[in-house]
């Protein structure tokens, strides 16, 4: 909401400085977004008179002008404007002046060999408008040498206030002035508006026709003013509009714009000569169209409220008028409309048609119903002043709704809700200054908010008004006791797992990324998603259209992007949401890793001590296990099963599970087809663990750890090498060995794996070290041999292994 300081002062009698006004506005909730002090920027531009304008000797379109600037001898200026002519008064800028519209500082220059010592400027060059057809033309009486801004009333600060959606009343300068007056920054100039008696009945009748459907128009007031002379509005009106960035059109239109900004009261004017018969306010019929004042044609439907006449739709209610019935300089009889509309319907229609107008902006926020008729009277008064004419009586269709209401307000509620100590007197005064009627003398008073404050519904709203007007800074900062509750952990299991997983993965050398929660549809399909319920109706881009079923695609693409920038060996992780469906319980937390190139955990890339080699399924497995351990999964019970989801290499991937029904995660190298579909280059090894799938830890009554059992006897280690079929897993060999003596065997480690020369094709050699821990006495050689024999027997039996000699 833009307005000038002098405009504000038409409504507020104040001695406050601009700075005080700006500060106060911000502190009462009318945040000043910018203050444009144009007097400063326009100060160097002065009135000058062109004494002569001769054709440039070397250019057809340029003129060499002698200009009287009011300061000494005439100055020679080369000018390209077609309207530069002897006798013209225009605006001059001396060398050294900054020209805002051109973003240059003027110098003395030669244009086609003729010296030019300054410039005559256009409105566009001063950023007053986009008019660059010629230099500014001033009136005969403009005083040469004087500042141009003051002459045009442009030396006025322009304030831009961000009005929040609840403050429809402050979309007019008078509302802003009222708030400032309430905050004791001046006195409101609230002149009563006198009704202007009609000289004759209004010849056009108005009907509200909504049939059985809900009415979209509570009230519609209309009056004809005949015999007007429409034309440019007076300078003061044009200056006001220009100052806030509006283009003056003609007096009748300018008056509606002035009242929109002055009183937050949008109006509409029809050229009565172009209106056929009576006006009907109704829902549009399917297929009806309107060519609106913005030059565009809109298709209408029955959810849109229109004003129609004998010919058809003439205006979009509360949003924009129609081109056909609009006023022009030749208008002699004008119909002035002041109406009330359903705010929600206006918002809907505006959104549907994509029209942003000053009228819509106000009607959808709610205009003051009680100002419907005074607004019309004020418009009449301005029209009579500017255009003359003779007004008809006012016709009113529908009725002005009764917006009065009474709120029981305990004065102590201010302190209870805000902590601010306010006396009854100042509380009452603040409310009254805002237009409330406060009745009663006790602790609980009856407050009737004014008609222009539909946003004040209850006690809390009144507290806000009091606090706002008395000053938020008066609310005392009050220590918030944390109470005597024991200091307990506040994080939930999943929150703890999430942070533990992040730290564990970063400690494994991975870098945490945060990627978009939405990815492209083909990518979701590639990674087991593609649920139509998870597709956005209005994605911001095609590649950000569907909620992700996995974090792998986002991270794999990010890894590739880094590779494209020259960082081929990257290890990224993310712990974040994935979506299996659209219910809250379908949202899970994945801890996902992507390693690319030679970004292994122990070492990355090339190094003098030995290069890292390509990432593989085991790097991914280590990452997944690190997450599981950090997140508190029962690591010793986890089962690793070959093979993973389809987007992984079938022979180089595995699942991590607690039984076949509880899959905690998976790991492996990306399938070559996946690499191709994502358009990324391998090798890429990935892992993903679903943190919610980890069983909830058992509650423990104390924090004591189990007793440490230390055996006084030395452990014994024996090595075995077995030849098994290639398809036999190391896990099977280890488990077989473990089963030989569950009491004595405490560890089985795979320390060698060999295929190739010396081993039959299709077979492999697995070497294990078995650690025996005696607990009662030192083992004899015979006892050790007996266990060893049992180990060989078990492994041979369960895996068809052959002990290597």
């Amino acid at each position: 909401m833009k307005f000038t300081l002098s405009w504000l002062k038409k409504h507020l009698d104040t001695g406050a400085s601009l700075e005080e006004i700006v500060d106060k506005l911000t502190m009462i909730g009318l945040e000043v977004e910018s203050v444009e002090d144009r007097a400063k920027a326009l100060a160097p531009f002065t009135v000058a008179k062109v004494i002569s304008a001769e054709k440039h000797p070397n250019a057809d379109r340029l003129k060499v002008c002698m200009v009287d600037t009011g300061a000494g001898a005439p100055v020679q200026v080369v000018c390209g404007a077609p309207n530069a002519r002897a006798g013209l008064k225009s605006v001059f800028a001396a060398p050294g002046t900054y020209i805002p519209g051109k973003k240059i500082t003027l110098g003395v220059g030669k244009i086609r060999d003729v010296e030019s010592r300054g410039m005559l400027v256009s409105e566009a060059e001063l950023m007053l408008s986009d008019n660059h057809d010629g230099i500014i033309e001033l009136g005969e009486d403009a005083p040469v040498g004087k500042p141009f801004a003051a002459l045009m009333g442009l030396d006025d600060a322009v304030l831009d206030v961000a009005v929040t959606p609840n403050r429809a009343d402050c979309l007019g300068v008078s509302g802003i002035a009222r708030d400032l007056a309430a905050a004791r920054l001046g006195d409101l100039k609230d002149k009563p508006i006198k009704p202007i008696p009609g000289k004759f009945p209004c010849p056009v009748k108005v009907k509200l026709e909504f049939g059985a459907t809900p009415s979209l128009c509570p009230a519609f007031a209309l009056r004809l003013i005949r015999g007007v002379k429409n034309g440019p509005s007076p300078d003061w009106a044009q200056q006001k509009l220009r100052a806030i960035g509006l283009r003056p059109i003609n007096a009748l239109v300018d008056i509606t714009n002035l009242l929109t900004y002055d009183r937050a009261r949008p109006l509409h004017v029809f050229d009565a000569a172009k209106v056929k018969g009576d006006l009907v306010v109704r829902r549009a019929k399917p297929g009806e169209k309107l060519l609106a004042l913005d030059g565009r044609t809109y298709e209408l439907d029955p959810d849109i409220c229109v004003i129609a006449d004998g010919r058809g739709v003439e205006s979009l209610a509360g949003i924009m008028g129609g081109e056909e019935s609009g006023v022009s300089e030749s208008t002699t009889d004008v119909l002035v409309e002041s109406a009330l509309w359903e705010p929600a319907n206006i918002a809907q229609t505006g959104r549907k048609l994509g029209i942003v107008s000053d009228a819509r902006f106000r009607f959808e926020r709610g205009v003051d119903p009680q100002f419907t008729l005074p607004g019309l009277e004020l418009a009449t008064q301005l029209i009579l002043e500017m255009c003359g004419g003779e007004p008809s009586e006012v016709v009113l269709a529908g009725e002005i709704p009764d917006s009065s209401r009474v709120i029981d307000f305990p004065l102590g509620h201010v302190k209870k809700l805000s902590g601010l100590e306010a006396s009854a007197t100042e509380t009452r005064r603040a409310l009254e200054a805002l237009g409330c009627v406060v009745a009663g003398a006790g602790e609980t008073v009856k407050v009737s908010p004014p008609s222009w404050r539909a946003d004040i519904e209850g006690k809390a709203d009144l507290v806000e008004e009091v606090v706002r007007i008395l000053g938020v800074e008066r609310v005392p900062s009050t220590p918030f006791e944390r109470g005597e509750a024991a200091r307990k952990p506040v994080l939930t299991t999943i929150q703890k797992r999430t942070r533990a997983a992040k730290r564990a993965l970063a400690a494994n050398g991975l870098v945490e990324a945060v990627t978009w929660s939405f990815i492209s549809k083909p990518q979701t399909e590639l990674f087991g998603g593609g649920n139509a319920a998870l597709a956005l109706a209005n994605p911001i881009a095609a590649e950000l259209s569907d909620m992700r079923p996995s974090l792998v695609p986002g991270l794999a693409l990010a890894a590739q992007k880094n590779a494209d920038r020259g960082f081929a060996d990257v290890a990224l992780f993310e712990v974040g949401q994935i979506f299996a469906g659209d219910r809250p319980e379908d949202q899970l937390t994945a801890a996902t890793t992507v390693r690319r190139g030679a970004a292994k955990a122990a070492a990355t890339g090339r190094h003098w001590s030995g290069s890292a080699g390509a990432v593989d399924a085991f790097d991914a497995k280590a990452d997944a296990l690190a997450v599981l351990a950090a997140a508190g999964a029962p690591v010793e019970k986890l089962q690793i099963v070959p093979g993973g989801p389809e987007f992984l290499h079938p022979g180089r991937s595995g699942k991590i599970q607690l039984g076949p029904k509880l899959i905690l995660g998976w790991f492996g190298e990306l399938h070559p087809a996946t690499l191709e579909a994502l358009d990324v280059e391998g090798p890429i090894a990935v892992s993903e663990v679903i943190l919610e799938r980890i069983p909830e830890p058992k509650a423990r009554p104390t924090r004591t750890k189990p007793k440490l059992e230390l055996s006084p006897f030395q452990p014994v280690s024996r090595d075995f090498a077995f030849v098994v079929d290639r398809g036999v897993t190391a896990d099977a060999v280890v488990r077989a060995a473990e089963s030989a003596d569950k009491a004595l065997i405490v560890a089985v480690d795979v320390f060698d794996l060999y295929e190739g020369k010396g081993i039959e094709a299709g077979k492999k050699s697995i070497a294990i070290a078995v650690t025996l821990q005696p607990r009662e006495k030192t083992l004899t050689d015979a006892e050790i041999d007996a266990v060893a024999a049992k180990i060989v027997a078990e492994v041979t039996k369960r895996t068809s292994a052959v002990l290597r000699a």
Partner: protein
Amino acid sequence: MSDLKKLEAELLGAVAAAGDEAALEAVRVAALGKKGSVSELLKTLGAMTPVERKEKGPLINGLKDKVTEAITARRDALRKAAMRQQLAADTVDVTLPVRAAPAERGRIHPVSQVIDEITAIFADMGFAVAEGPDIETDFYNFTALNFPPDHPARDMHDTFFFNPKPDGERLLLRTHTSPVQIRTMQAQKPPIKVVIPGRTYRCDSDQTHTPMFHQVEGLVIDKSSHLGHLKWILAEFCKAFFEVDDVKMRFRPSFFPFTEPSMEVDIQCDRSGGEVRFGEGNDWLEILGCGMVHPNVLRNVGLDPDEYQGFAWGMGIDRIAMLKYGMPDLRAFFEADVRWLRHYGFRPLDFPTLAGGLSI
């Protein structure tokens, strides 16, 4: 006696002259071996008279001790010299680079770190951490939060929608973390003290907006907490978070459908240098919105606004991270550029605590 002295001089000279352990061993055998010169002298003691023995015994034994000592010392010296020589040839180039430990290479994203910082501060004040789903209903995201249907306040949230279901319901991506206020108030009875961090979405993308960002929300519901307490909590938070002794905050009335009264909060800072400094300067920087929970919101979750009251606040996690740590561009947060992540990210063991300092 001069014989003994002479022998001593000879032997000590030989010890000193021995160039290696073998030569020294030869000297030892020649002096102290079975037939050695000193051993031979010792043997003569047996044939001596007690008087003679009493006189010569100490002298000969003294000679033996001196020579033994000299040999030991010399052997030690020779060994050390030999080791020095050996080690002198055994060198590595210690300037060769070592591999960085994995924990040195890994990084935590600033968003995660800042969430941990926020959690540390509010956990200390007795707040729990609540979370909710990203895919929300219109009820939780708007209606329950007192956004009237078709009100322009809804337009201020550029909402991502899903396609309508057969029953007409249209889910959306939450535009703020406030729906979790509703879920929390539905799930637990007051007193409530929670902070709510999470991802939020708006279909908006430019220099300072990304379609996805992070917010943290706070909610307190009891029977007496008021704006003054909110002021105090936010000031305490800002001091702790920005790690400064004092911050000047400015509360400005504003509007949110779900709070009444509503405020926006600016923090005083100095932006004259390249970086933002808090607690000094003349600039006001908006950092959060807050207010007393609107009576309609309380009613919507079945709480009587005449009995219960409380406040809520919300701020952008990415934004306060940028303010504290100086990242110039929000969009870079989500680009996964390892150069940015290594530079602005945090070491895995830099866990923020109030005891050790959040970031020091």
